[in-house]
């Protein structure tokens, strides 16, 4: 699959403040989570992606276009900005309709799309009310509606889940999944890592304006050798299982937890562990109840890498 | 749950929470301290009032200086009649001189008017508007304070800055007069005048502070509020003058704050400006009504803020 976003030694400053230092990354189709601590440069990267800013060094192409002011690209891209700004005087529907007019649709078609998009983000009932009366979550969803209404190939969404209540969060996540199922690409940033993880395994981790990691979360976890992988087990007979596991060469350490049925395994070769565990547990007859690797999550990877 | 240690231990508070704390003054003082943080605007805002005060004080000093020279010259003469005449003359001159002190002070205040409104506006218009914009009032109203305390606190801050540019100069100039007058005569003979001057300055500040806060409470942005303040201030004067001219009745000038204070100073110090035709009570009523209006606006707005809107 060819990359949809290619950044090469990308840098952007705000005066003396660095937004993005030196970023080389290529993003492939599908859902990609853009994560990183505050001030890492996620928003700057997204702004460069949609051509709100121009790079100071390096280059960026999206679908083969240089984004700044590129009209062909804007037909294929939708952007949901982070800042809570809308044209306050109009209704959500009118807002999306006007934006769709700018996207090149005739009047009726624009209105049809606006209505469809507002329904899609769950604002069907509120769409004829003024934007200024909306709650924070509704405004966020209105911004999302204008980003998806024209059926773009790529949706870039900067923190699209902030301010949403759990119900709206769920709806929005479903919307992203549905978009991905339709073959669209979604690039989204969020601080809430487990939500990103529920959407996708592919992530781009930016830290201090540079690329820190990219790819599938589990693969990335396996690349981190500094910290042995930790797997939590629960069994009827944890001691038996523990002694059996200690015989395996890839297991570095096993410790028992206080409650008498938990077991913590540390291994530097988690791939083999998973591969062999079924056989080991089958032999041991220890009554395995659960097996959870608690540091294979995006959050754990994030912590190990960002520190 | 990941293990985590907090070596920094939370310590419970063992002291007492007093029921009668001076909460308003705490709030006022915190507002003043924020104002002190930025030095440059302070320099610009206070430079002109400061210069005017120094000039005023200098004038007063000069007058008394001249007087004391005459005095020493005359008392050197030992002839009885001449001495009596001289004393008479000195007393007259002194009275005239002392009378003109208030003239100097009021003129200085008149010239300063615009800068005073500017200074009070600069420091005051942000007080409530910024709170509203940043929703900082949520922090204040989560404390055991009432709306009235909040208002007093904010008023205190504006009064402080207003006093710096109005009551301060008046005090300095009165002080100069006291020290320059022979035998503290300004203090002993005319202490009522000093009180009246200070009272007048204080009233001036209070009324304008209320206006500043009322404007601040209806705006969301400080700049808007500042523009609004000047808008209202000048609009009232212009409307008063215009209506007075149109309907040929000077009473319309009651609309103008400036004119009302002129009337007040005429009554207090007997310095006629000629254009004021109505009675003192009318002016007092006008000022009271104006303050009442400001308070009503403030109360409504602060009520909304207390409810967290």
């Amino acid at each position: 699959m060819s990359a949809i976003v290619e950044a090469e030694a990308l840098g952007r400053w705000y005066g003396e403040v660095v937004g993005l230092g030196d970023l080389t990354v290529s993003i492939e189709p599908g859902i990609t989570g853009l994560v990183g601590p505050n001030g890492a440069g996620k928003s700057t990267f997204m702004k460069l992606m949609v051509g709100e800013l121009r790079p100071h060094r390096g280059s960026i192409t999206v679908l083969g276009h240089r984004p700044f002011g590129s009209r062909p690209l804007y037909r294929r891209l939708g952007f949901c900005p982070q800042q809570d700004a809308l044209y306050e005087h109009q209704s959500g529907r009118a807002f999306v309709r006007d934006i769709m007019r700018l996207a090149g649709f005739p009047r009726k078609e624009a209105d049809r799309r606006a209505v469809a998009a507002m329904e899609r983000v769950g604002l069907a009932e509120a769409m004829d009310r003024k934007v200024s009366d909306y709650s924070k979550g509704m405004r966020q969803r209105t911004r999302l509606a204008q980003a998806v209404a024209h059926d773009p190939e790529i949706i870039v969404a900067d923190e699209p889940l902030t301010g949403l209540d759990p119900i709206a969060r769920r709806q929005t996540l479903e919307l992203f999944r549905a978009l991905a199922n339709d073959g669209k690409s979604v690039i989204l940033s969020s601080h809430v890592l487990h939500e990103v993880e529920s959407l996708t395994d592919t992530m781009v981790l930016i830290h201090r304006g540079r690329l820190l990691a990219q790819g599938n979360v589990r693969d990335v976890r396996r690349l981190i050798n500094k910290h042995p992988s930790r797997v939590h087990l629960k069994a009827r007979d944890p001691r038996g299982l523990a002694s059996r596991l200690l015989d395996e060469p890839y297991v570095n350490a096993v410790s028992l937890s206080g409650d008498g049925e938990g077991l913590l395994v540390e291994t530097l070769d988690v791939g083999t562990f998973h591969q062999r565990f079924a056989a080991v547990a089958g032999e041991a007859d220890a009554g395995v109840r659960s097996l959870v690797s608690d540091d294979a999550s995006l959050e754990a990877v994030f912590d190990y890498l960002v520190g | 749950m990941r293990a985590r240690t907090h070596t920094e231990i939370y310590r419970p508070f063992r002291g007492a929470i007093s029921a009668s704390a001076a909460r308003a003054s705490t709030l006022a003082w915190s507002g003043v301290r924020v104002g002190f943080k930025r030095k440059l605007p302070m320099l610009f805002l206070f430079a002109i009032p400061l210069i005017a005060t120094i000039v005023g004080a200098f004038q007063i000093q000069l007058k008394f200086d001249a007087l004391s020279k005459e005095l020493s010259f005359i008392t050197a003469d030992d002839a009885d009649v001449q001495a009596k005449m001289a004393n008479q003359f000195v007393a007259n001159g002194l009275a005239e001189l002392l009378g003109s002190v208030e003239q100097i002070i009021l003129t200085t205040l008149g010239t300063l008017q615009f800068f005073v409104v500017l200074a009070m506006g600069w420091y005051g218009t942000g007080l409530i508007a910024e709170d509203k914009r940043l929703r900082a009032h949520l922090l204040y109203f989560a404390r055991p304070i009432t709306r009235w305390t909040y208002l007093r606190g904010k008023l205190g801050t504006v009064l402080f800055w207003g006093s710096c540019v109005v009551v301060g100069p008046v005090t300095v100039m009165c002080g100069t007069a006291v020290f320059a007058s022979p035998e503290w005569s300004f203090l002993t003979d005319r202490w009522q005048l000093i009180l009246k001057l200070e009272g007048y300055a204080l009233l001036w500040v209070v009324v304008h502070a209320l206006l500043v806060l009322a404007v601040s409470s209806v705006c969301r942005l400080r700049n808007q509020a500042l523009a609004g303040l000047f808008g209202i201030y000048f609009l009232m004067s212009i409307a008063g003058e215009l209506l007075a001219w149109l309907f040929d009745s000077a009473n319309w000038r009651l609309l103008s704050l400036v004119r009302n204070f002129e009337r007040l100073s005429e009554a207090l110090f007997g310095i006629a400006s000629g254009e004021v035709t109505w009675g003192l009570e009318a002016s007092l009523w006008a000022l009271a009504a104006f303050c009442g209006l400001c308070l009503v606006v403030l109360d409504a707005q602060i009520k909304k803020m207390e409810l967290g809107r």
Partner: protein
Amino acid sequence: MKSSHAPTADGGTVPAAPGRPSSPAPSIVRLRGLVKSYGDVQALRGVDMDLPPGPVGLLGPNGAGKTTLISLLLGLLEPTAGEASVAGLTPTTRKSRVEIRKRVGYMPESDCLLPGMTAVELVSTLARLTGLGKQDAMTRAHEVLDYVELEEARYRPLDGYSTGMKQRLKLAQALVHDPDLLLLDEPTNGLDPKGRRHMLGLVEDLGRNQGKNVLLCSHLLPDVERTCDHVVVIVEGRAVLQGSIAELTAAEATRLRVQTDERDGDLWRALEERGYRCETPDEEPAMGPTQRGFLATLPDGRSDADEICAIAAQIDAPLLQIEPVRRSLEQVFLTAVDGRGEDQR
């Protein structure tokens, strides 16, 4: 505290009936049929609530009445009807409503911080507004700033603070008068993972170790799950669900979530042959070739996963995860909201 849906339907078994002799220390917040209306609009339509000690999560969709409830607990509003007692005070008179705020600390959601001040100034001023003496206020300000780990920055103006520092400062000011009840409105808003963990660590410490009654409002249910013992769900002005999180999200005994790699399908088929019932998890609709595992119900008589391990070993599939299915707090919340929504219709 026993978990229960819609206490009104339960005939008042939960919360405990007043005056019951066995009832423990009175809870800090006690609401009975609390109603608050603005004109014709009813924001709260009869809330019954007893706040258990420790950290409690307050959940609810937007517009459910959470903000009104917080204002009431802060003594900013007077209840229209019903009984309320906050820290032993009833917010019916103006005086007691002001008094309540000496016992309650509030961390608002919005930014709130005036530029120009420093952290020490802000916190000590707010402490003095609460009624602490001058020395007390300064000592306390430094203590709570230490507690939230605002180091040298406390002497700098707030203008340059990062989001994480601002949030911690807001927590510090809520703590300065050592209140019995802490109302935290979205304390993790806008924080990155590290900042969020820090904040949650503080909230947990306050609730669990320092004996504060913490009411945590958050849209991020995992945060609530992580820090709180209990939840209260408010929907359309009523507390439709309150109970302990551990009970509400108790694990099921016989359903396991099983995950391998690409061979998910193979294992699925192999398990079904042995009498397991397999299904795709419902909370995450399948997207393309799923690698997210499936749910397997154990056949009768089995209580562990040894057989699954054996089967996996036979077909040589790696085992990435075996875990008893647990209702997530999100599911609990969504069910509560849906149930309520249907009642209304």
